[in-house]
């Protein structure tokens, strides 16, 4: 990377920042390792091949997990009692067992000794094909990238499609790819993050987005495979592993060969009021799957800047990037899989706003030299004046080119006005193409002078980030409390106070008992697919 010494940051400060992030994160990882959630357990059943839903749309995995939890609890994991029931001949297969359990005609036990061992080894054997399918998908992706090729330019061009109807999304996504998009994100229906189940089947009705379902994933991936072949360029597909069903959606993404997933460590807590423990447990498991599946995660630091001021709160973005990095690596993700996020959200009314954007973007570039950084366009200061918005997006694209960003979410001049018109998307892509064509190589020439405005600003943000991390690590509540959770509960991030014992999905969190078994985790932790 040619950005090497551009900012002349003190390596000792960077090391301190990382070690503070580790210090803040590791007690949370300990909690994640000793808890499970209903959604983690449902994800394991999905990996074991259980899918489908009853006539009211309630998935069988929900029925089975609820039945087991009601009868014997989830403290030892769902699979041991489930596969014990299969061994005892309660049903011929998982689906029948789930159906019978929904009718209340199965009795679950907690097997002991040899019986427990036998149930666990059957569970492990049953989950293996699911993990094998994830491995196979990863190999297929590698093969297709080799055959069709990666985009010729960096940053990769990321476009959003969202009609609510998967059959409308497909031609729109294919058109976008033909117009130059390298990555297609299908935005989810509003409110899906708060559903405690994953809807089933191909869906044609969504609100401001399309539901994430296994069938929708499959349909879109197949359509993009067709267009990849046509264009001679592998088109990547993105969805959202967030909300109450994060682990299940991660599993479905692995099973259907999605390529990138939005997966932030704290977004759900802060912006959706999802219980912090639930989030961290779900996140760790989903990131283990992403690691295995070769999926690139995208983190959501842009959100901090939509609520807080992008100048005053710039360091919270850096802190969140460091936390996301720590949690991601702990879960097995590698540098090339960390699509850490940041955004162009400084008010254009402020003097030197563009210079500050450059400082922030270079800071991220230099702190995470090997990560495919995701650069997100202005939203907060898009007013409805589409002409001015088009210029702002041009400056955003220019900052992306000058600071060697990797994934560029294309800004729409109609942001905050309407769902983008076909022509808005076309104009936005022209904007990107012009800037990359005219100034794509500018990163090579752009060296902010020593101790100039940009270098100083970047150093200031980094040192504020270190201060905040120090504050978090030293945030002592009651004895035994976890500093990061305490900080979240005190409203340190994004102004929101989120206590660890409140929030949505709390009742789906279970503390693991000695002897807890999760065959998917066993396989995922045993080693990566590669």
């Amino acid at each position, binding site marked *: 990377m040619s950005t090497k010494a551009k900012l002349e940051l003190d390596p000792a400060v960077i090391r301190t920042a990382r070690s503070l992030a580790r210090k803040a994160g590791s007690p949370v990882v300990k909690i994640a390792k000793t808890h499970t959630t209903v959604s983690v357990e449902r994800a394991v059943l999905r990996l074991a091949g259980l899918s489908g839903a009853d006539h009211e749309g309630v998935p069988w995995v929900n029925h089975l997990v609820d039945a087991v939890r009601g009868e014997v609890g989830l403290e030892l994991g769902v699979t041991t009692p489930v596969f014990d029931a299969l061994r005892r001949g309660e049903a011929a297969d998982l689906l029948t067992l789930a159906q019978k359990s929904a009718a209340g005609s199965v009795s679950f036990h907690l097997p002991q000794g040899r019986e427990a061992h036998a149930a666990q080894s059957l569970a492990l054997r049953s989950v293996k094909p699911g993990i094998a399918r994830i491995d196979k998908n990863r190999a297929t992706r590698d093969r297709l990238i080799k055959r069709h090729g990666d985009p010729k330019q960096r940053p990769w061009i990321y476009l959003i499609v969202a009609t609510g109807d998967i059959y409308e999304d497909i031609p729109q996504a294919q*058109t976008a790819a*033909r*117009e130059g998009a390298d990555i297609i994100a299908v935005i989810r229906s*509003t*409110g899906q993050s*708060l559903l405690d189940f994953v809807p089933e089947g191909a869906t044609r009705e969504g*609100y401001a987005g399309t539901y994430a379902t296994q069938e929708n994933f499959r349909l879109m991936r197949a359509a993009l495979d067709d267009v990849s072949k046509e264009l001679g360029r592998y088109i990547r597909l993105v969805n959202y592993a967030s909300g109450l069903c994060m682990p299940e959606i991660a599993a479905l993404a692995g099973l259907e060969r999605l390529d990138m997933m939005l997966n932030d460590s704290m977004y759900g807590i*802060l*912006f*959706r*009021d999802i219980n912090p423990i639930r989030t961290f447990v779900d996140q760790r498991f989903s990131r283990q799957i992403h690691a295995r599946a070769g999926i690139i995660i995208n983190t959501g630091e842009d959100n901090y800047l*939509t*609520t807080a001021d992008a100048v005053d709160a710039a360091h919270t973005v850096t802190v969140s990037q460091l936390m996301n990095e720590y949690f991601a690596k702990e879960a097995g993700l590698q540098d090339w899989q960390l699509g850490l996020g940041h955004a162009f959200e400084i008010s254009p009314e402020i003097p030197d706003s563009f210079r500050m954007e450059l400082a922030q973007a270079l800071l991220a570039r230099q702190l995470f030299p090997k990560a495919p950084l995701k650069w997100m366009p202005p*939203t*907060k200061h898009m007013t409805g004046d589409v002409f001015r918005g088009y210029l702002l997006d041009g400056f955003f694209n220019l900052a992306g080119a000058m600071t060697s960003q990797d994934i560029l979410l294309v800004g729409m001049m109609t*942001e*905050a006005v309407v769902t983008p*018109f*076909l*022509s808005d998307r*076309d*104009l936005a892509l022209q904007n990107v193409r012009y800037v990359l064509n005219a100034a794509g190589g500018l990163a090579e020439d752009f060296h902010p002078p020593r101790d100039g405005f940009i270098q100083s600003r970047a150093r200031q943000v980094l040192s504020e980030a270190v201060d905040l991390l120090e504050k978090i690590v030293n945030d002592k509540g009651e004895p035994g409390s976890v500093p990061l959770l305490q900080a979240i509960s005190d409203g340190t991030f*994004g*102004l*929101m106070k989120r206590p660890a014992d409140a929030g*949505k999905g709390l009742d789906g969190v279970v503390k693991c008992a000695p002897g807890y078994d999760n065959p998917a985790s066993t396989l995922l932790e045993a080693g990566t697919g590669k």
Partner: protein
Amino acid sequence: MNTRDTGSKILPDIIRPYGDTTGDGMVQVSFTLPIPHDKRAEGAALQLAAKMGLAPALLVHAKAMGSDFTFFIVYGSVSHLVDLREVVVIEREFAMLSAKDVNAAIKKRLRRKLVVVGACIGNDAHTVGIDAILNIKGFAGEKGLEYYSEIRVVNCGAQVQVPELVARARAEKADAVLVSQVVTQKDRHIHNTMTMSAAFREAYPAGKVPLLIVGGPRFEQGSEDALGVDRIFGKGTTPGEVASYLVHAMTQAGTQTGTEAMTNTKEQS
């Protein structure tokens, strides 16, 4: 020509758009037609421009977008006249305020945080609406009420029973209660809302009932009195509108029963 006086400047009643000369009527429009780009497409664009009242129309830009669509930019003089005397302005009964102004108004008037309790009542599990208004994530690019530093939000979530909601509102000393109703089968939303408002009137002394606000896509606008609530919000309502209304309602209560409101504040603090 008839004219009208708006303050210091005299405005004519009849006006036309302004390009670079008074009365030139010049406008600029852009649109897409679902046909490939060729001579016929350009003719089609000019035909549309003529039907929109642009004469003469100047096609300044035409560009193919893929094989099936063409994008056009047209400049032209629009033949229509605007009669300012016929312009009817429908005003909201309250002014839209920024988050900063909302916070400042609450601070000034209440000298404490405004407490909002929200819920989906009955069997309704659709929290999309209430979450869009309350959660910091917000809706349509606007942050939810949680974002306002002077508003304390208690979101009770879905399927809250009416007595539970009343109890919570009392315990939290709610200034306003927001209820969302999406499910409308067999007029459930109406039934639930009336049950809710009746319960609040029963539980609170007269004049002390918190502001009752109901939102949902199928409420009839203007049926507040029939439902026993203070305000109905429909589809597409943003958090900013609700916050602005809260300030408006608070101010009105203040002017009508000023002393009483002040006493209340003192008792609560």
